[in-house]
Every structure is written in structure tokens, then in C-alpha cells.
């Protein structure tokens, strides 16, 4: 590893962190605005033009608020919990392929921090660690509401992680790689429109999206922090910067989930013209990626503004009795499809566009 490589990587890490944290801040603004419009209100519009400086004001408020540590908490874990929530949420961005390779000053630079042959598993490993922040916060707060929030959340996350992992197996069978970059590259056919969601994983995508809603504790699966029942759920006892860390972790997880949906099912940076042989094609790819992620985030907020919350038993029934069997069906279906095409070469009997050649 030369010094130059090291510097490039350091710059990339800094840039990605900066962009993600800014995106997290503005995601809160977007959520409040969009929700407000859905409910025929205006939302925050006082700080700066259209309220655009609101995230900044919120950040300053969080930093200067008094940091209350209640007497009866288990102190070490109470402080550890927000950190364990935030760090894995940010670490996932190390492997998400935002764009293709770009040539700057004669150097071939990839528009992602790093990539290796099991990067998809890395993302899953990090998201599965995210549950600890919530669970430890719920336990260490020594408060009923927090404990129930943490309990519900761990049960929910264990249940839905299963459906989540199984829903992407279809994509893996189709692409034959655990490398996120290769998964994106495999979707570049049809002038950049051969996305897995219609070729041929619509069911997989639906399951993935529902499971991811539950994994990120969003409406309609936001039981761990259901305000009307549990005050604030696992973060009832947190204030100031520690609360802000939970908040950021949640929104970073939303961005991760949207990015993963984009990468796995919506072609990543692929789109019309993004694989052309011009210097701006990778930048166009970046733009496509950003638009897709933004669209998913909007759908998240839209769902929050529209749907009521599940009851606890409904949530469990839905996960175990509907999502899981459907995900297994999807795997069997995809495997059969792949087997037929792979071994009997059925593609020759079909028109070219259907086989994805």
C-alpha cells in the first residue's frame, strides 16, 4: 500500500462521512417537511430560507442541551449504547458502491471507499450489530418503558432479519456473487435498465422492502419506540448528544437500507447512458444513485405519513407466517428458473430481451 493509495482512501472516507452526515441532517428536515405537507401543515420554515438551516439549529441545540444521566442507570452500558448504535450504522457505507470508476488527473479512482468479495455480508454483519444499541439502551436505562422497547425491538429484529436475508437470496442466485460491485455490474444490460427488480425479483424486492422497514424500526413497524404506548421506547432516558446519536443512527440506517435496495434491486448507478465511454458517465451514475436513494427515502416518509402501526402479535404473525414462506417460495422459484436456464439453456427458445442477453 503506497502513501498515495492511503491518502486517496483517507480522502474518500472523509468525503463519504461528510456527505452521509449531511444527508442524515437534511433527511430529518425532509421528513418533517414532507410529513407536514402530507398533514396539510407547513413544517419548519423559520430558520433560513424555507427552513433550510433547521438541521443546523437542531444540531446546535443537541450539543448545548444538558446531558442528563439518571441515577439508577447501569452507567457503562448506558454510555456505550448510543455509540454501538451509531458506529455500525456508519461503517456500512465503507462498502456501498455509490458509483463506477472515475478518472481524475489520470488516476483511476473508484467512487466507493472499498470493495471485497463478501461486501454484502459485511453490510449484513454491520446492520445485525445495530440491534445492540437499542437492546443495551433498553436494558441499561433501568426503566420499564425502555426495557419494553428494547425487548420488543430485539424480538422484532431477530424475526425480520430472517425474512430480510432470505429475500435477497434470489438476487444472489441470479448474480452469483456476494460482491456489491459485481451485483451492480450484473445489472447493466438493456441500456442500463436491466434491474433486478423487474429481471426477475419483484417479489424479492417487495419482501426486502417490508423487512427493511421493520429492521429500521419505521412505521408501520415502529413498536420499539411507539410514542403513544412507550413514551420514547428505548431512548426514553436519553438526552442531548446521546439522544442525537440514536437519532443519527436511525436515519443513517434508513439511508443504508435505501442504498441497499438501490444496489440490490434497482441497478445501483446503472441507468440510460451511465455506462457510456465518456468522462461524465460515472458522474451521471452517481446522480442516478442519488436520485434512487432519494426516491426510497421519500417512500419511507410517505409510508410514515399514511399507515397506522401494527399490533405486536400482528407484527409477529406477519413476519413469520407471511414474509418467511413467501421468501422461501421466491428462492425456490428463482433457483428453478436459474437451473432451467443454466442447464437446459431455455434462453434459446425465448426472444432475446426476455433472457437478458
Amino acid at each position: 500500500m503506497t502513501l498515495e493509495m492511503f491518502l486517496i482512501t483517507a480522502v474518500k472516507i472523509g468525503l463519504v462521512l461528510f456527505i452521509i452526515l449531511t444527508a442524515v441532517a437534511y433527511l430529518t428536515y425532509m421528513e418533517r417537511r414532507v410529513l407536514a405537507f402530507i398533514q396539510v401543515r407547513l413544517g419548519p420554515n423559520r430558520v433560513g430560507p424555507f427552513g433550510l438551516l433547521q438541521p443546523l439549529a437542531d444540531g446546535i441545540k443537541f450539543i448545548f442541551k444538558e446531558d442528563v444521566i439518571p441515577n439508577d442507570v447501569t452507567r457503562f452500558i448506558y454510555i456505550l449504547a448510543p455509540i454501538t448504535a451509531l458506529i455500525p450504522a456508519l461503517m456500512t457505507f465503507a462498502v456501498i458502491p455509490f458509483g463506477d470508476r472515475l478518472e481524475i488527473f489520470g488516476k483511476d479512482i473508484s467512487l466507493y471507499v472499498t470493495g471485497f468479495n463478501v461486501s454484502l455480508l459485511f453490510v449484513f454483519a454491520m446492520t445485525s450489530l445495530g440491534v445492540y444499541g437499542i437492546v443495551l439502551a433498553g436494558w441499561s436505562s433501568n426503566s420499564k418503558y425502555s426495557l419494553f422497547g428494547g425487548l420488543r425491538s430485539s424480538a422484532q429484529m431477530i424475526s425480520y432479519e430472517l425474512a430480510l436475508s432470505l429475500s435477497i437470496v434470489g438476487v444472489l442466485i441470479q448474480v452469483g456473487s456476494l460482491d456489491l460491485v459485481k451485483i451492480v455490474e450484473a445489472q447493466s444490460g438493456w441500456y442500463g435498465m436491466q434491474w433486478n427488480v423487474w429481471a426477475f425479483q419483484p417479489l424479492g424486492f417487495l419482501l426486502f422492502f417490508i423487512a427493511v422497514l421493520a429492521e429500521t424500526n419505521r412505521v408501520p413497524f415502529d413498536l420499539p419506540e411507539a410514542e403513544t404506548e412507550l413514551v420514547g421506547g428505548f431512548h426514553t432516558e436519553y438526552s442531548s448528544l446521546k439522544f442525537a446519536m440514536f437519532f443519527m443512527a436511525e436515519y443513517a440506517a434508513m439511508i443504508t437500507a435505501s442504498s441497499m435496495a438501490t444496489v440490490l434491486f434497482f441497478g445501483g448507478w446503472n441507468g440510460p447512458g451511465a455506462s457510456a465511454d465518456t468522462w461524465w458517465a460515472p458522474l451521471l451514475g452517481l446522480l442516478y444513485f442519488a436520485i434512487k436513494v432519494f426516491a426510497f427515502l421519500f417512500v419511507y416518509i410517505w409510508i410514515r405519513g399514511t399507515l397506522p402501526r401494527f399490533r405486536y402479535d400482528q407484527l409477529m404473525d406477519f413476519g413469520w407466517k407471511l414474509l418467511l414462506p413467501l421468501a422461501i417460495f421466491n428462492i425456490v422459484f428463482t433457483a428453478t428458473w436459474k437451473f432451467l436456464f443454466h442447464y437446459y439453456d431455455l434462453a434459446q427458445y425465448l426472444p432475446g430481451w426476455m433472457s437478458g442477453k
Partner: protein
Amino acid sequence: MFDAITNYFSNLTPEHYFFFLFAIVAIASALEVVMQRSPLYSAVALIFTMAALAANFVLLKAQFLAAIQIIVYAGAIIVLFVFVIMLLNVRAEESRLDRFTALRWIAAPSAIVLFAGAFAAIRFSNLDTLAPSPTAAAAGTTERIAEVMFTKYLLPFEAASVLIMMAIVGALVLAARAKEYDAELSGIENQEVPPKPEPEAQPEEVEVS
């Protein structure tokens, strides 16, 4: 003597540093698992051990297993432990190494003998001469593991899935009587519907499929 030390340090590669870093983390957190009084602290310490061991797997060029180690152990098994600790709300402290029985006088020497035996076996073997295999990187890829698993070792794999099936049934049987208890603890006892099928047996399916 001094020369030997400087010589030793000048021969160190980044791999050595990473190995020692993660080895220290692994041993320290493993000690914490045993020394902590509260089971929750032990579980948290065990997560660190798992992570350090996963890092060692990466040093050994087994990336797939490293990822699986984090997903299965840290992401599923320890979560299960933490879940049960929370469910039973175990806060009772016990003293550090507290089995004050006659057993201690048998256990301590046997632990020492166990380690001494392992150490002697390693020390007097010729493992040091074992050169790293050039095919190590190829052996650790997902493709290679899948190939071996679904051809040569298909029977053990199927046996493992039968084992998991039995574990699911066993956990369900054990937990089926727990309905009222669970309802009370998940804080929704005032609802008429009995809650939740048992979530406990399931996460391991992730790695089987």
C-alpha cells in the same frame, strides 16, 4: 539479549501488529466474560471476543467465515442471550469466581493442566515449520466453500439442517408453556390475543439457506 529483541521487532510485518492487537483484544475480552459478575456484561464482552476472532479469520484469509462469524454469533446468538437476560431481568450480582465448593480444588488444577498440556503439545510439535499454503486465499472464498459443502460434505450439511430442525421443535416445545409468562413480560397482558410465536429457535436458518 537486546539484539534479539530489536531483531525481533524489526522483523515484524503489519500482519504481526494486527495479530497481536486482535489477540490482546480477544484474550482481554474473554477474561472479562469470565470475570464479570453480571451476565449482561459477560455477553457484551463476548461480542468483543467474537469480533476479534473474526478479525483473526480475515488475517487467515477466510473472509466468508469472518462475515458469517459476526452475523451468526454477534448478530443472532448473543442477541438471543441478551434477549433472555432482559426477559428474565437478571440483575443479581454474584461474586467473581464464586463456586466455593470442593470442586474448586479440583477445577483449578485441571484448568492449569489443560492449558499446560495444550501448550506443551504446541511447543513440542513441529508446527513452526508448517509453511503458509499458497492456496489459502482460494480456500476461503464463498465459491470454494459452497462447492465443498454441496458435493463432498453434503451429508454433514443435511445432518446439520436436521439438527436445526430438531432445535426449533425443541425450543417451541420448551416455550409453548411459557405463553402467559411471555405475555406478562412483553407488556401487553391487557390484550386478549396471546402474543408472538417463539422467536428464539429461528435465526440460525440464515446461515443454512
